[in-house]
């Protein structure tokens, strides 16, 4: 095993537990919401950082063609977003909720942020109620992987809970060999 989990040695350490969440989001659903509700949708769901990361990749209504390069008027005055990137971030928020496992009230969408690092990787940053839920179970590390194709975006989130009183799981076997 390679990567952050192996490096941190969290998988088999006593007092640690993993939670995993996965979610899919149809790119067309996000595109329809942006076109129907515009900035109202964008700003209720996504943080300013996420909006900035998803802005400018394409023009609204040109989901499959990219921005025009020739002369003439731009086809729309609406903000331009990558619907695939927005959908991936929505999937990441849902996947994170599955990791946080809220009971009753759920965190506000913007309490869960997909943060893009300067070198292009992504990580989950929590605030508000989402951060409180993570703190309750000692979850001090969250990792995320995003992917998308033309029609569908997906995200997987893994959270590491460091609870000293975590019940042991006797049937779990961890293979630390490189695979």
């Amino acid at each position, binding site marked *: 095993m390679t990567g952050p989990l192996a490096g941190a040695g969290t998988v088999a350490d006593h007092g640690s537990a993993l939670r995993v969440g996965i979610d899919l*989001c149809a790119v067309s*659903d996000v595109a329809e919401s942006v076109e129907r*509700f515009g900035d109202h949708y964008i700003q209720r769901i996504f943080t300013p950082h996420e909006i900035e990361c998803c802005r400018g990749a394409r023009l609204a209504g040109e989901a499959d063609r990219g921005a025009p390069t020739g002369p003439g008027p731009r086809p729309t005055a609406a903000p331009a977003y990558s619907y695939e990137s927005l959908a991936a971030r929505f999937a990441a928020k849902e996947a994170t909720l599955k990791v946080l496992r809220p009971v009753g*009230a*759920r965190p506000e969408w913007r309490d869960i942020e997909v943060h893009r690092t300067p070198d292009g990787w992504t990580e989950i940053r929590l605030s508000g109620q989402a951060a409180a839920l993570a703190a309750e179970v000692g979850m001090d590390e969250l990792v995320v992987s995003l992917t998308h194709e033309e029609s569908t975006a997906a995200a997987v989130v893994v959270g590491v809970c460091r609870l000293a009183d975590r019940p042991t799981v006797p049937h779990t076997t961890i293979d630390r060999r490189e695979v």
Partner: protein
Amino acid sequence: MDETIRFVLAEHGRLATDPGSIDEHADLFDAGMTSHASVNVMLALEEAFDFEFPESMLKKSTFESIASIRAGVLQVTGGA
């Protein structure tokens, strides 16, 4: 109000059941409404009733049935 809620659900809820006839206490998520569809329902309700749900009400239970949506709208608009 219920007519407007059912109209919004028909437009945005993506239910497998006819929103016009679904029981007001039926679970809308069990009826096929996805989390993303519930966002659209929330935004459409805000447009229809000209208000904004506070963060404290942005929870699954607010949108899980027609009855709970009605209660939420009434709570925000001061009707209850």
